[in-house]
């Protein structure tokens, strides 16, 4: 009986892993062939399409735009999220539960609707489509995330640590800089990293709110109009590689730092 369960488990796990990796393997594999269609049979390794991607100004500038929007909007989201989490965790504010609910509310609404709302508002207010507009949208989706992560990590112990610092003579700004931020660093970094990932990958809001200068997912979307295209494979593989590096980095630095 145990043996059967084990064997069945193995088979099942392999099948699911196969399902999960199938599209990724196909993507990377056919980015490496020189023919104009990324379809079987595989005709041998070539970096032709990677060359094409890296010399495509539209794609490379979209990549820079994406990094800019992601880092600046994540910085804004994590700053706003941290300050508000600190305020709510440390002080008794009237209507605190309701206000915290308001900040986390965007988490329950789909990106499409958030983007639509901003589009209607900006259209009405005469704000032109731009990377800035998309960045504002990215802060809207990432602020509640940063707030929730950081707020959940601010327990009583954390509050006592700050009290101790104040008791030992630290003024408010030194408590913030020397105690709260370093102690909360893992949560702050996790919030920032997740925001970066979500912003980097976000499509609909950028699609609705940008026009000429746009982000990488939107530029990739534009490439898709030409159907199956090895260039899309190449740029997709590159994005995948960057994400893997980030995830491994995150895993090694942050998650391994837990005290023994």
């Amino acid at each position, binding site marked *: 009986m145990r043996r059967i369960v084990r064997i069945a488990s193995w088979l099942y*796990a392999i099948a*699911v*892993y196969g*399902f*999960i*990796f199938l*599209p*990724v393997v*196909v*993507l990377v594999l056919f980015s490496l062939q020189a023919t104009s269609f990324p*379809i*079987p*049979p595989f005709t041998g390794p070539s970096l032709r399409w990677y060359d094409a991607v890296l010399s495509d100004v539209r794609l490379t500038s979209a990549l820079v735009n994406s990094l800019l929007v992601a880092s600046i909007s994540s910085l804004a989201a994590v700053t*706003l*999220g941290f*300050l*508000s989490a*600190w*305020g709510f965790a*440390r*002080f*008794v504010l009237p209507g605190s539960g309701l206000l915290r609910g*308001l*900040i986390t*509310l*965007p988490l329950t*609404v*789909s*990106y*499409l*609707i*958030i983007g*639509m*709302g*901003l*589009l*209607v*508002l900006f*259209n009405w207010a005469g704000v032109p489509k731009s990377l800035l507009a998309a960045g504002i949208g990215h802060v*809207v989706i990432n*602020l509640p995330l940063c707030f929730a992560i950081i707020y959940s990590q601010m327990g009583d112990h954390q509050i006592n640590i700050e009290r101790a610092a104040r008791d030992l003579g630290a003024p408010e700004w030194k408590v913030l800089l020397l105690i709260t931020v370093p102690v909360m660093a893992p949560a702050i970094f996790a919030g920032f990293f997740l925001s970066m*990932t979500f912003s980097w*990958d976000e*499509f*609909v809001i950028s699609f*609705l709110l940008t026009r000429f200068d746009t982000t*990488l997912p939107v530029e*990739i*979307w534009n490439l*898709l109009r030409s159907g*199956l295209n090895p260039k*899309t494979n190449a*740029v*997709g593989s590159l*994005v*995948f590689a960057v*994400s*893997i590096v*980030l*995830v491994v980095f995150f895993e090694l630095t942050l998650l391994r730092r837990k005290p023994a």
Partner: protein
Amino acid sequence: MSTSANNGHARALPWALVTPALGWTLLFFVLPFIAMGFSSLTAHEGGGFTASNYSQFFTNPSYWQAMVNSLEVTAIVTVISVLLAYPFAWILAEQVPERWQRLALMLAVLPFWTSYVVRSYSWLLVLAQNGVINRALTGSGLISEPLQLANTRFATVTGFVHFFVMLLTLTIFANLKQLSPSYRKAAADLGAGPVRTFLDVVLPLTLPGIMVGAFLTFVLCIGDYITPQILGGNNELLMPQLVMMQIGRRGDFPLASALSIILMAVVTIAYLACARWLKIERA
């Protein structure tokens, strides 16, 4: 004990901390909603108050059909994803040796971190007329003509399931690991076999977590535009595609607003219906 404020500046400080975030949310989340609400009640041609954007949804069968399609696809995706992910998470948590679990889980969700747009496109490579699957099937002589896999509901569901299996594996795995091993030991000690233990102890205790994961799947799936647009094509429209179509082709913001609000209302109703189960988790 409450942190009572002692001095004058401590009264202003907390508000100074929370106001930027609250202000941002009000200005760029609540206000857009109000704007969208107003917009949905204006006529596309010439402005002026009208409820026709909403009545169109109920009278135009193709709009109505988009909602039915969305609900069907979302339901199918949620059920299949949970059914696939639960045994997988269970194997990772129970059958894989402890020291390999972290790696096994990381591998299982690795494609989760790739670009969402690229992931849908990758499925197109797999499912296309001359894609990997059709080549393999015709090559082995199982079929003579390639199957129509892309631009179908099947393709949309496959793309969604791929994404949500990873997401649910993560949440269910976390759920199973949180379960204290003493529950299982106690059940075994009291004479329950492995199957009974699973059905009577493990499954009920992880059910609230599954509900939360399923709800998350529902919300993310019903609001997604990318997967149905890339994989499903325009043969069968889902709600997000219908919304985007109003903006893209016709610039009809009022109708797009009304459809968005209807979509949100459906999610809210689903939330209220599930709230009873979702609350169990918080208690």
